[in-house]
């Protein structure tokens, strides 16, 4: 049975914070005035709030002025971009002591472009210290073009310093799917105590 979405005449308010990844130093965090504004109060089971990158160390002082709720009927106006202030100097003033990390190699995940395999260093508490794709699908010309954009490298300093503790990662591309799959397997293994 396929569920059907219900149409709604008006627009719900939308108030996600703007976030941008600064070029050099990682995460820029903005906070919501009213996180509950994006929860469709009681209307669904999908209560959602944006968190501060799960990182007390990246608590920044760059609040975004949440636009006023617009109860106007739906229009075809294009979505506007939230102004984002990039202020690298305010990012991550406290870097915690580096955790003890152990290197793991995730399973190879096949994609239509070829295999992807991730090697990651993970602390016992699930913090990702670093991660790299050690096998990437680069044997075909198409793969090279895709891979260049799609395989993320998780060894960003901000990533390592924020104590990443995610249940899952949502993203878009074929090879990043495989990358996340391989990395997720490592996280699962560490969390369940079956390795390390």
């Amino acid at each position: 049975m396929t569920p059907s979405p219900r149409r709604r005449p008006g627009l719900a308010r939308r108030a996600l914070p703007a976030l941008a990844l600064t070029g050099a130093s990682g995460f820029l965090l903005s906070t919501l005035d009213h996180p509950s504004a994006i929860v469709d109060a009681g209307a669904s089971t999908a209560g959602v709030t944006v968190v501060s990158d799960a990182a007390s160390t990246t608590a920044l002082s760059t609040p975004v002025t949440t636009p006023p709720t617009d109860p106007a009927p739906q229009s075809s106006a294009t979505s506007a971009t939230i102004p984002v202030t990039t202020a690298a100097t305010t990012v991550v003033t406290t870097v915690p002591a580096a955790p003890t990390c152990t290197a793991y190699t995730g399973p190879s995940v096949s994609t239509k472009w070829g295999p992807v395999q991730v090697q990651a260093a993970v602390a016992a508490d699930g913090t990702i210290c670093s991660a790299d794709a050690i096998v990437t699908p680069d044997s075909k010309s198409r793969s090279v073009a895709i891979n260049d954009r799609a395989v993320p490298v998780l060894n960003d300093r901000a990533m390592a310093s924020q104590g990443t503790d995610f249940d899952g990662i949502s993203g878009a591309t074929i090879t990043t799917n495989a990358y996340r799959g391989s990395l997720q397997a490592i996280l699962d293994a560490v969390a369940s105590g079956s390795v390390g």
Partner: protein
Amino acid sequence: MHTTSGVRRHAEVMGTMASIHVHDPTVDATVADAAIDAVLAELERLEEMFSTYRPTSEISRVNRGELDLVACSPEVIDVLDACTWLEHASSGAFDRRARGRLDPAGFVKGWATERASRLLTERGLEHWFVGVGGDMVVHGRPAGRDCWTIAIADPTKHSAVITGITVTGGAVATSGSAERGNHLWAAGGADADTWASVTVIGPSLTWADAFATTACALGPDGLDWVSQFDGYQAFAITHDGVLVNTRAA
């Protein structure tokens, strides 16, 4: 931290990795394992039914003219019906065909994941996470925490995460131009390259995934298009790495 995290399993399905976490504190591990086995088996069954990479799938047999649509499994009819509805609802931006052949792959992963994950609830489990290739359904609560934390991958940089969201129940799906699968975006032209990725959050993964795919194809109007559906929220990341949400100004 995930120190009391219950049963976690992963397995390769649908060309990517499924990750299933069961956090029910009082459930025996063998019960959780059996439920996870059932989810994985259902995903495999549905992949065998729909995969265009498998010559034995019903979709492949339909495309070769060996199987009439009216003789297909109810699941195939359901999916094709839903895809047809979505094509109309998106004025053709969503397309269930690729090069003239049926290819509902842009719809099936989310639909199959949601369908398979229900088996956990049917077996009495209350607190679980099912993620398949970056799309996920969550139910209940993770052990020791109030909500699930989901990282959103940055599609534009070689850094993994652009932000995090917490979800108390429902689904998160992200689609992007890099996974275009080459047909969904053909009709959209330049508009279809507006967003590097679109994430949709809502009660159903079937529709969160389908709406994310469609919003990418629709381009500038995609986020507003999603917002007409009750309970669904969308945000996008531009090719410049800027996060954009619905009607922000």
